[in-house]
C-alpha cells in the first residue's frame, strides 16, 4: 500500500493558496512525480507570473522566477546550456495563452526538450478575476460582467489542440483535477512527460484543468461540479499527441 506523506519538494509552511484551490494539488502532483523519478535535486522549476508565482514561497527545489509569459523562453536558455537538468515551467492561462502565446508556441515548435505544465482555471486569479483567453462563453469575470460574449472577445483558446497541431512536440495531454480519476491520470501524464524529457524526446505539454473558487464566486465543491458541467465538455481531457512510445 502506498504511503501517504508530505512531499519533500514543497516547503513545510502554510499555503497561501485560497481554500479549495487546485494549484496546491497540481504542485503536489509535480513534486510526487519528481520524487518518484529521483529527479528532485536535478529539477529546475521555472516559475511564471500569476498565482503560480506563489510557488516561490513553497517550492523547495531549485527555481528561477521569470517575467509574465516568458517561462518557455527562459526555460529554453536554461535547457540549451544545461541539457542534463530536468526543466519544467508551471504557467497559468493568462501567462501562457495571452501574454506568452508567442513564447509557448515557438518553444513547442522548436521542440525544446523541457516540460510545460499549464494550469487552466479560466481566469486571472492573482489580479482579481479578469477574463482569460480560456474563460468560457457566458462565464462572468470582472471584465465580462455579463458573461463572456464571443462577438467581442472570441472563443476560449484550446491550447492542447493548438500545440498538438505542431510537428515537434512529443507529448501533449489534458487532464481535469476535479475527480480522483482525473488526478490519477494527471499524475501519470506528468510522469510520462518528465520521463520523455529525460529520454530526450523533445517538448512535452500537460494541461491541468483547475478551478478558482474565489474568482468564480463559488464554494470549492461547487467549482468541481461547475467543471463537470461546463469546463470539461469544452476542454476535453485526453492525450492529444504521444510520440514517446
Amino acid at each position, binding site marked *: 500500500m502506498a504511503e501517504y506523506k508530505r512531499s519533500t519538494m514543497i516547503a513545510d509552511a502554510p499555503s497561501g493558496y485560497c481554500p479549495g484551490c487546485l494549484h496546491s494539488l497540481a504542485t503536489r502532483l509535480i513534486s510526487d512525480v519528481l520524487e518518484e523519478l529521483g529527479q528532485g535535486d536535478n529539477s529546475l522549476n521555472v*516559475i511564471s507570473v500569476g498565482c503560480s508565482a506563489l510557488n*516561490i514561497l513553497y517550492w523547495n527545489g531549485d527555481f*528561477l522566477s521569470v*517575467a509574465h509569459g*516568458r517561462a518557455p523562453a527562459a526555460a*529554453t*536558455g*536554461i535547457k*540549451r546550456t544545461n541539457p542534463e537538468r530536468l526543466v519544467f515551467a508551471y504557467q497559468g492561462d493568462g501567462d501562457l495563452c495571452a501574454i506568452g502565446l508567442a513564447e509557448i508556441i515557438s518553444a513547442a515548435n522548436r521542440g525544446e526538450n523541457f516540460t510545460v505544465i499549464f494550469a487552466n482555471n479560466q481566469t486571472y486569479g492573482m489580479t482579481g478575476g479578469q477574463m482569460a483567453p480560456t474563460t468560457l462563453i457566458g462565464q462572468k469575470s470582472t471584465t465580462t460582467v455579463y458573461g463572456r460574449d464571443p462577438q467581442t472577445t472570441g472563443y476560449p483558446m484550446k491550447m492542447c489542440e493548438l500545440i498538438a497541431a505542431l510537428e515537434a512536440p512529443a507529448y501533449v495531454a489534458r487532464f481535469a483535477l476535479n475527480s480522483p480519476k482525473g488526478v490519477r491520470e494527471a499524475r501519470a501524464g506528468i510522469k510520462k512527460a518528465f520521463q520523455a524529457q529525460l529520454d530526450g524526446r523533445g517538448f512535452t505539454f500537460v494541461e491541468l484543468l483547475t478551478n478558482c473558487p474565489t474568482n468564480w464566486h463559488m464554494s470549492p465543491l461547487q467549482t468541481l461540479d461547475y467543471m463537470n458541467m461546463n469546463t470539461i465538455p469544452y476542454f476535453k481531457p485526453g492525450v492529444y499527441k504521444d510520440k514517446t512510445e
Partner: protein
Amino acid sequence: MSEKRFMKGNEAIAEAAVRAGCRFFAGYPITPQNEIPEYLSWRLPEVGGAFVQGESEIASVNMVYGAAAMGTRSMTSSSGPGISLKAEGISYLAAAMIPALIVNISRGGPGLGSIQPAQSDYLQATKALGHGGFHAMVFAPNSAQEAADLVYNAWDYAERDRNPVLVLMDGCLGNIMEEVELPPMKKLTDEDLPEWSLTRRNGRDYQGNITPIYTEPILEGINTMAGEMYKLWEEEDVKFETYELDDAEYVVVAYGIASRVAKEAIMELRKEGYKVGMIRPITLFPFPKKIIHDLDYSRVKGIIDIEMTIPAQMRDDIELQVAERCPVYEYGRSGGCLLDDEGVYDAIKEIVTGGAN
C-alpha cells in the same frame, strides 16, 4: 600571441564575446546588427555554446535571462526598436541580479526610424533602459578594436556587479571593416561558475533560487544598494579619452562615430591655429562628469556637443557639469543622415570664430 583580422565592428563584437567566454546568444534579426547573430550562429556551436534565433526580441532577452541564471556567460544584441522590446527583460535582469551583455547597434529613431546609423538611443541607454529606475554600465566604443576590447571585459563588470552591461555602438561602426587585434580565448571551467548561479556543476548541494520578486523592505534595500553601486562606478569605472585638451579654448564632447569625425575636424582646425580639443566619453554611464566639471573655465570659452542625433541627447549631462561657466553648443545630424568631415569642421569653425549664436 596576438591575432589580427580584418573584420566588421559587429563581427569583432561577436568574436570577442566568444573569446570572453560567452556561450549563449539569443536574438532576433534587425538591421544594422545582423552580423552579430549570423556570426554567432555558427561560431558558438564550434566552441560548445548554444545559439537560438528567438521568436522575438522579448523572447530572446528572456532566453538570455534563463541561460545567464545558470552562470553561463550570455548575450543578446539588437537595434533601437528591438532594445525597446527587450526593456522589460533587461529590467528583470537588473531586478534578479543576473549579469548579461546587451548590445545596441543603433540606428535612426524614433519608432521604426531608419536602418541607417544614428546615435539616438543615448537617453534610453543611460537614463531608462527599462522600467523601475535601474542603470546598466554603458560602454560606447569608437572603433572595431575598442568594441572587441570592451566586449572582452564586459562580463567581468557584469559578474562583479551582478547587473546587465550595455554596449552602445552606432550602425556605422558596426558595419565598417577595420583591423582588429583579437584577445586570447578565455578558458572558463566549472570552477569559474558564479556561486549564486543555479547550476549544480559547482558542487552546490542546497536549494538555489533566483527571483526578481521581493518583499517591500528588501526591495527598498536592493534599490539602496544599487544606488551605492552606481556611485562606486562613478568613482572607479569611468572611462574617457582626451585629445588636444591641455590648451583647448573650445572643447568638443563626442562619443562613438561622432568622436572620429570630430577628431578629423579638430586636426584641421589645429593646423589653422584654432585651439580646439576633445573629451570622448567611453563609458556613457557612469558619465565622465569630473573631467568636464574640472576644466579650467578661465580658459575654456565653449563646449561643443557633437552627436549623430537631433536634438543632442548628451547635452543635459554636459550642462550639469559646466554649470553655466561657459556656453554649450550642439551640432548634429540625425535620422540616419551621417555626420561628415565638412559639416563638423564648418560647425566647429563657426562656433570658435564667433559666428554661432
